[in-house]
């Protein structure tokens, strides 16, 4: 799946995350901020790569501002951002 334009999903409310995707030509670039980065940084990072892989996104600039979202919320927000960016 190709990201064709800048798109966002989510909010900065607690237990949510705000995701921005932008077109990129050199693979996946992840910029992660999280209120629980010390506890869950690696887990979140792994999740992002796995969701992008499932969606077959090879090139993207993705920024995540995580406010403590649980996995299913993060997953849903990333998927929505990607769907909005491919159109």
């Amino acid at each position: 799946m190709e990201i064709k334009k800048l798109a966002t999903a989510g909010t900065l409310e607690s237990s949510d995350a705000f995701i921005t995707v932008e077109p990129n030509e050199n693979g996946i670039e992840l910029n992660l901020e999280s209120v629980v980065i010390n506890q869950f940084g690696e887990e979140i990072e792994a999740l992002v790569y796995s969701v992008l892989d499932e969606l077959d996104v090879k090139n993207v600039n993705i920024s995540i501002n995580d406010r403590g979202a649980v996995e299913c919320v993060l997953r849903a927000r990333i998927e929505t951002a990607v769907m909005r960016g491919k159109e």
Partner: protein
Amino acid sequence: MNINETYGKELPLWQLLSCREERVSKQQMLFDEFHLPLICFTLNIAGPVKRFALADEAFFYGYNSISDQLLNGGFAVKYAEYIERDSGFEGYFVIAGDALEIKKMAVSIEESCPAHRLFDIDVIRPDGTKVSRSELEMAERKCLVCDNPAAVCGRSRAHGLNTIIERTHFMLRELVYSRKAEDIAKKAVKALLDEVYTTPKPGLVDRNNSGAHTDMDIALFEKSAHALSRYFHDISLMGMTAENCRGALSSLREIGKNAESTMLEATNGVNTHKGAIFSMGIMCYAVGFLMGQSEKITAEKLRKSCKEVCCDVMADFDGIADKSKRTAGEEFYLNHHIAGIRGEAYYGFPAVFDLALPFFEDIKRNGFSENEAGCIILLQLMAQIEDTNVLKRGGTDGLMRCMTKAKHLLSVRLPLTELMDELKRFDEEMIRMNLSPGGCADLLALTYFADSII
């Protein structure tokens, strides 16, 4: 606990997530229009069910607290509204003021009692950034269950969803119930005050005089009524958390005894409200009980609950014939078959629900002021009720004279101003005879109270 209070429809995740995005667009619209900081208030309800009666009620307590605090703090509120979504109510306040100052106010509400942990009062600047607690050098919010930061426990689901939901519902109940109990207590105190302010009342303390009493006046009654507020609150709360109310009276005796001490302390040993502690206490408990069952309170239901609470009260008279020393109430029961306030309670206060309350509604509709209506109700009660307070001081003779006079005044159908003048003369007569219908006064207070609840 009524199941309906925490039962509601599950909100699918996708819908919850889109509600949040809509909330942010709503905020953006307000920023575009006002270019000012805003408060966005929501409840923190764990689990997939976001909407149920208790949660909605808690929202409005929170919304009103914020309104009040903004007003008290002199904040310039430019816009305020609440909207309803599937994810719960949301409150918005746009304020011409410093975002940090607003956040300070918000945090003070969030921290003012443990159950306010469920309030999420976000303060957002016009650029969309939220004022964080750390900007006020305050600790981030703690988990509902333990002392760790909320974000960490929330992310790891450290306590399991069920524990969090249970804890949330417990806090909601605490929040809503204690507010409701406060409300009931306020009305009970007001009813006691309205009773003493009702003027003229034959033989009783009122705005004109101290009636047939030498040891009390209106100021003492005010002091005593306010001192009982805590008791009315606590007994209402007991009613709300009770599974059923049948025969509950015996479990209320101790809190009633404590209330008597509180009263005597406030009045320096004068018995101002002993009867009210008994009867108003029972009615507060019954009101609390019905609220705990989420029932709409009608006169009929309230009467029935009072009756159930007091179903064992006549046992007080068991074996009094064999006693060597009897109280005045026991003597009256034994010798005159007058059960006094116990009898009233046993039958669910018929003097209030059959006599005073219907009549009260009726005369208020006919354009009488609350005070005039109260005076006439009291006269009705004095005509019908064998008041043990009058009996105690005046014997059967005094009681008969008092009841006959009241009946006479009601039967001659005087114009209102003349009736009020007659009441003043009746007052003087009662003072001369040293008679005071304190039992009827308690029933009048109960009538005011029931009227304010129903």
